[in-house]
């Protein structure tokens, strides 16, 4: 099972984290990679460098540059992990939050199938008729 964990620190700081905090987080992420579960992770820069794009009901767009004001909702980073159960994702997230020193993480299971199938079902029904090729 693949989960995305989305981290919301609960506040947006302008001061960079301390060297010690960075080292602790680095060690945690390394452990996660060593245990084979971490597929991808990154932190996000300050919201002043971002924007929110909204499509209005009439089809027009509203683009609002950061910084965003609702500090509680601001996303600080994400990780994509491959685990056996939601409980495993929860356990690893607790460990992450302990190292992060607070905040909230949202855990969402990712689709095993893509959200939209770019191939029609009729085509799929005809598929699979050619020979297996060089898959070794």
């Amino acid at each position, binding site marked *: 099972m693949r989960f995305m964990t989305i981290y919301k620190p609960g506040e947006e700081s302008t001061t960079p984290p301390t060297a010690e905090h960075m080292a602790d987080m680095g060690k945690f992420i390394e452990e996660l*990679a*060593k*245990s*084979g*579960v971490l*597929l*991808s992770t990154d932190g996000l820069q300050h919201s002043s460098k971002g924007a929110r794009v909204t499509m209005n009901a009439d089809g027009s767009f509203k683009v609002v540059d950061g910084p965003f004001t609702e500090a509680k909702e601001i996303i600080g980073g994400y990780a*994509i992990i*491959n*685990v*056996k*159960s939601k*409980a*495993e994702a*929860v*356990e*690893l997230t607790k460990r992450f939050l*302990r190292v992060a020193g607070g905040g909230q993480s949202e855990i969402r299971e990712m689709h*095993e*199938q*893509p959200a939209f*199938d*770019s*191939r029609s*079902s009729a085509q*799929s*029904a005809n*598929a*699979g*008729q*050619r*020979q*297996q*090729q*060089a*898959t*070794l």
Partner: protein
Amino acid sequence: MSDVNRAIDAVWRIESPRLIAGLARITGDVGIAEDLAQDALVAALERWPQTGVPDNPGAWLMATAKHRAIDLHRRSKRIERKHEQIGHELDAQQEMSVSDLDTALDDDIGDDLLRLMFTACHPVLSTEARVALTLRLLGGLTTDEIARAFVVPAATVAQRIVRAKRTLSEARVPFEVPRGADRDARLSSVLGVIYLVFNEGYSATAGEDWTRPALCEDALRLGRVLAELTPNDAEVHGLVALMEIQASRLRARTGPRGEPILLLDQDRGKWDRLLITRGLAALARAEQLGGARGPYALQAAIVACHARARTADETDWERIVALYDALAELTPSPIIELNRAVAVSMAYGPAMALELVNELRSEPALKSYHLLPSVRGDLLMKLGRLGEAKPEFEHAASLTRNIRERDLLLDRARKAGNGEKS
């Protein structure tokens, strides 16, 4: 299952390989280590529903297991003074506080995990035993999960594991990472076990399902762990690259009714870009380490050719033929020759490929390999020899034990019989 039980289950998944590895170093016996770890799990199941899951559950389990080990040792010491050396070490470690213990574990845990992998894949064990023991000790799978994955009775797996642990103990297999030339041979056994698990998930040899993605994930996890433990072994990265890239196609490989969809028919939009990126990075790492010509790296390079092609028509078949040439030279095998023939048909046409496949028909190793008649049938179809293709597909269908694959082959036989050149 209650929330606490689910949490304990998750902690077990995360911690059990490290726990068993650490205990195996102390006791020198994988079987005793697993028993102790299980005892600690039982203790957790009794305690944690009342106390909640501790902040550092791994350290709690380790401390509990060590206390059990000391008890066990004292009891056996009263009867016979056999395990004295283990006892000394344990007594010394008992002096350490839990946090010291934790630090000590952090330092050694990577080495212990590596030792556990080498031990579980020791050549003194049968291949089935290596697979079962590796999934159980390092993958954290239960006996039932392993049995379901390989479509064998749970009792068979349980017996395999018990016997494997006894064999390791009786053969006095040391709990260590081998050195020198021995290391290469033993590492290739570890890689072989991981890839076997992956392949069983990728195209199940028996049963209702064409693929078992969970087993692929287990193998990938083991491979990624191994790659972190042995960062300078090119072939480990080669194997990881091969598995990541193959796994990237998993969700494109099965149709809505569970039927197989073969490589050239797959919707490449369904390929998993994240796994492809990871796979290509692992392949680059293998090549940087000078391992481009290793057997797994070569296979990874072949699947990378597919991963890089945006459409099936863009596939660099000539390069794939050249890579198969190198692979066949390195590890001659009729199965590689068969795959090479398929690539030849794509690069240079079906007539040339059919000649190669015809030569393989006398190979005893391929006598009951369903892909030989299946490939031959396909080449005959392409050459318009439909009447000859039909019995080939029927023969192939009679050889596969996978139901989904059998249906596909029988369908092709029927079409060839009807003169449909699909």
